[in-house]
């Protein structure tokens, strides 16, 4: 299944990249969202997948390392999801303000600060 998921990861990544390469600010945010989904999946997949068996210990607190899904990448992905939520909300508002202030949604027309 890793193989299929790797393809999904690549696909989402490509979609994200294609989207950020458009000139529209809306597509930029959409692209960033897709990229973050792709990378989150990547962390989980690269670490190896286990179907079912969440890392929840049984009542008695049994302690065997076998058969459970790897909890560490899950924690990493959770952190990454939350961080990207913050970052994307900020970016969204930034682009919204930029559009308001600069009067365009075309990223190519936001080049004054460069030259």
């Amino acid at each position, binding site marked *: 299944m890793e193989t299929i998921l790797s393809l999904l990861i690549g696909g989402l990544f490509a979609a994200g990249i294609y989207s950020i390469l458009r000139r529209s600010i809306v597509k*930029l945010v959409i692209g960033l969202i897709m990229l973050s989904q792709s990378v989150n999946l990547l962390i989980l997949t690269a*670490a190896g997948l286990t179907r079912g068996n969440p890392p929840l210990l049984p009542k008695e607190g049994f302690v065997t390392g076998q058969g459970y899904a790897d909890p560490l990448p899950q924690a990493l992905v959770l952190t990454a999801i939350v961080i990207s939520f913050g970052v994307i909300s900020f970016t969204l508002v930034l682009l919204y303000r930029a559009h308001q*202030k600069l009067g365009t949604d075309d990223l190519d027309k936001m080049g004054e600060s*460069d030259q």
Partner: protein
Amino acid sequence: MMPELIFPLLIPLLTGILLFMSRKYLRVQTSLSLAGSLIFLASSLILLFTVLEKDIITLQLGNWPAPFGITLVCDLLSAIMLVLSAIITLVIVIYSLLTVDDSRKKYGYFSLIFMLMFGISGSFLTGDLFNLYVWFEVMLMASFVLMVLGGERAQLEGAVKYVSLNLIGSFIFLSGVGILYGKMGTLNMADLAAKLSLEPGSALVSSSAMLFLVAFSIKAAAFPFYFWLPASYHTPPAAVSALFAGLLTKVGVYALIRIFTLIFIQDIASTHQIILVIAGLTMIFGVLGAASQFEVRRILSFHIISQIGYMLMGLGLFTSLALAGSIFYIMHHIIVKTNLFLTAGVIQLFHGSSDLKKTGGLFRKSPLLAFTFLIPALSLAGIPPLSGFWAKFTLIKAGLDLNSMWIVVTALLVSLVTLYSMTKIWSEAFWKPHSGNSGITSEVSTPRWKLNIAGFGPMIFLLTITLIIGLFSEPFFQLAFRTAEQLLHPEYYIDAVLRK
């Protein structure tokens, strides 16, 4: 175990929180941020002296043992970076009193500075790869907000690029972490290094090493990843520009040095050669950018890039001398570059613009400003016996020792162009008579004492440090050599972290 290793993290965080809660009271803000930055400086100095005495120190957070819990590690490189950051924080806090308006302060300006420092010190201290990602995000987010705070046109425009490119960098970084964890099953940098050093096929991780190279090169503003920097660094208030110019890119350089001396050292012949090529190209394109510009802060921004090239050159050459050169360069550069941006801020204050076409006559108008510009500018260009010369000298010698002629020639010519563009600022802003009919356009609306204390005070402070590094460079060289020695022997780091 050094419980006090946590203070350089806690102090900025707590100061940041308190500052945000008191954001409406400007007096409280001023004293609180001054106090915070002084304590921060003290705590990082203590760390530096502890490390000098005891070598690498570590702290296992939550008391969980090494590869499992998060480790904070402080070696000489971290300690040096931390002390430099604390110095810059102090300077910027004082300078902000002059150049940052009240409305920004009421929206949490000072608080954000300390949040930024929280992220920066975290990046320097952490010994865990994913944790490093988190610190990078803290730092980036704070810098994003500082970048847009005020919401001016140019700021927003610059921020769009700054944010987008850095986010791509974060995604690449995160992918790298995921992939490396997939291969090695650990996140602790010392553990990674130890496991990789035992692995015969470890050169196969070089492909993921490239993800880190790209991600950190974006933060460090190396070629061809630097485009966000010239687009944005000149847009926020002078104090913020100065802070960013001095520190932010150096965190990327730090990360590159860290992982390419500790973790990815299996395939030096190719990976470090690539770094060297990137270093050369970064120097060239950065300095070309600087030569093409006609606005002080833009010129200086492009110079940041070209000097990142020098810092990477030492990493790419990868000898003790070369690394010492890089470290010396970082020490010198953070101080000097911040100072130049502070000068640019004062020029802007005098003229209402830092466009060279609109400036002039400052040589007569303000000899003090001329002095505080000239010394760092010459130092930046590597004129002896100022600090930049020693850095350049060491790197050139390291290059010649290895017979890497092309990088030596590049570095030398780039330093000539650096000198050229520094004289451009000197000639246009200081020597050239001012073209405006009234001489100096705005006889600065800020009171004189404020300009002296909050403007020239920090500049002279930094200038003194530059002169000390230049004229009494021996202790700094010893420090740099010791640091390089630590970096070239990753086993010290590994032992310090993983010792039972």
